[in-house]
């Protein structure tokens, strides 16, 4: 007969010691490293299983065989897989993502160029989505089952189910061609292209830095349509989630408490209920923002918007794997960054999660 004794109690203690502040930082770093490694590995493997010949992008279809063979060797494609991966990883660790075959530029340079375009678009779209989506969702929730609820729902759903290229082209036709409210495809009118030296890469900010208000308004009128169309998607999602979170909160006891205090309905909804709704909502918004930051290829094609989505897709279709890998890492980093940001916001908004 042996009593149960507390096993490895000291071990646990020690484990707990590591789980202090430095420990949790260490754990975060470790899990980030794993995630990135996974991303790289998956991308790399994709590059290998892709039935697209990466050499073709570099030499074209009509190159003679000897050029083809030489370039293939230059690209390191004749090495064993693990060796290629190892070389790639060790370069990445040194901050070198290599060169893109398609643009003849270092991948890093390319990303510095295309990511701000996407960032600008996604940020504005998310902004519009949040500014319109939350009130729409609240409005639907407080009118649950009545016609405003249905209207919000159907409009949201329509945004969800129309292909973006349809919306994009129709938007161009109506607002650009017919009504002349907005400018056409591109980030600036074509003959302005050379007028602006990218500082941040964000056209709205660069034009302001330049101090040229004409350019700024030109940039605004270019971005507003694609941003609105992207926003439609996040709006639909945000409104819907807001609605359901709101309904949940409105049935909570503390709402009753607020009513007992004689507080106006307005304050109850926008301060009390929404304050709580924002807690889960930041995660939703962050996720939809992160998704937009991947870049929407279709929007980018239609609006001639040189963004990340198009860059990665195009690179993938040409098996320009350095570019794809670089892009994936950026998207992954953005994703993780946005998630961390949402965690921070979550903590900020929800005192229960602090400490």
């Amino acid at each position, binding site marked *: 007969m042996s009593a149960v004794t507390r096993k490895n109690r000291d071990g646990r203690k020690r484990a707990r010691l590591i789980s202090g502040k430095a420990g949790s930082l260490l754990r975060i770093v470790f899990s980030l490293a794993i995630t990135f490694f996974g991303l790289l590995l998956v991308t790399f493997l994709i590059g290998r299983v892709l039935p697209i010949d990466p050499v073709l992008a570099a030499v074209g279809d009509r190159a003679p065989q000897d050029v083809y063979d030489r370039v293939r060797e230059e690209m390191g494609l004749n090495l064993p897989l693990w060796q290629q991966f190892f070389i790639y990883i060790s370069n990445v660790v040194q901050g070198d993502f290599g060169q893109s075959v398609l643009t003849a530029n270092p991948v890093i340079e390319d990303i510095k160029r295309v990511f701000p375009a996407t960032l600008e678009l996604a940020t504005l779209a998310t902004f519009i989505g949040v500014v319109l989506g939350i009130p729409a969702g609240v409005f639907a929730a407080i009118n649950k089952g009545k016609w405003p609820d249905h209207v919000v729902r159907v409009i949201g759903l329509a945004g969800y189910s129309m292909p973006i290229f349809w919306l994009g082209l129709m938007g161009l036709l109506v607002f650009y061609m017919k009504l002349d409210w907005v400018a056409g495809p591109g980030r600036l009118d074509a003959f302005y292209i050379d007028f602006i030296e990218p500082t941040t890469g964000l056209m709205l900010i660069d034009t302001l830095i330049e101090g040229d208000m004409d350019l700024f308004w030109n940039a605004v009128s270019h971005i507003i349509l694609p941003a609105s169309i992207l926003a439609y998607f996040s709006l639909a999602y945000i409104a819907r989630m807001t609605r359901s979170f709101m309904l949940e909160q409105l049935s909570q006891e503390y709402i009753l408490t607020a009513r*007992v205090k004689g507080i106006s309905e307005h304050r109850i909804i926008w301060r009390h209920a929404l304050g709580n709704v924002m807690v889960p909502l930041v995660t939703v918004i962050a996720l939809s923002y992160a998704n937009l930051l991947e870049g929407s290829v279709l929007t980018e094609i239609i609006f001639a918007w040189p963004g990340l989505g198009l860059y990665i897709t195009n690179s993938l279709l040409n098996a320009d794997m350095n570019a794809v890998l670089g892009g994936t890492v950026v998207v992954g980093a953005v994703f993780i960054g946005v998630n961390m940001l949402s965690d921070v916001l979550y903590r900020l908004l929800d005192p*229960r999660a602090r400490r």
Partner: protein
Amino acid sequence: MSNDPLLNVKNLKVTFNTPKGEVNAVRGVSFSLGRERLGIVGESGSGKSQTGRAILGLTAANGRITADELKFHDVDLANLTPKQWRKVRGARISMIMQDPKYSLNPVMTIGDQIIEAYREHHKVNAREARHRAIDMLEAVKIRDPERVFNSYPHEVSGGMGQRVMIAMMLIPEPELIIADEPTSALDVTVQLQVMAILDDLVRDRGMALIFISHDLHLVSSFCDRVLVMYQGHVVEELAASALHEAKHPYTKGLLNCLPKMDGDQSDLPILEREASWAEG
């Protein structure tokens, strides 16, 4: 105890529309209330809470209130606009909820929630309001009011939370407080301590109190008068001191079925319900 009635309730009915048909939660409750402590007891689902909520106009959206009379002083509570309600709620009639864990907004500090209750009804600046709030926290025997003022609800214990709740509901100095099982989520000893605070405050400020509970014993030792409810009806009304003289079999049954401390392990008497009770 002055005898001019604060609240007059005649034939109050609360009916809910549900997918399964109508639910009559309260079926004709009448009573009048002066500046006294009135207890409402009854088993779960007997309509205690709904009676209390109807007085504050807080019946859920699918519910309907009818009453021959529902008057607070000369205010007809049955026909108030939302705006008029806001003048009554908090300022003149208030309610203490059962569970502080769920009844306080988790993302607002306790201080903000108390101040909000006060400033809704008193035009004072922020500093003044803060002052009042801290005083009030002290009044409910919170030892470190400054700290609690800046805390969030999850950072205080249940007993503390309930004190905060009391402070919040009393700060606008209402004339009538409805306490819906204010202590049943708490430990026995804490429960009594919280009740003592409530007792003191109500007494000092000359408020009327409706105390809702399912614990007959507790209610009778705390209140002046007791209403016993069963299935939406008041089956008996008695003075607290006269509890042992209760006549209604339901009331007696409730009293009997409490286990005693005497260590007697024989079966407890069981309440045998009769259909006729539900007719009122």
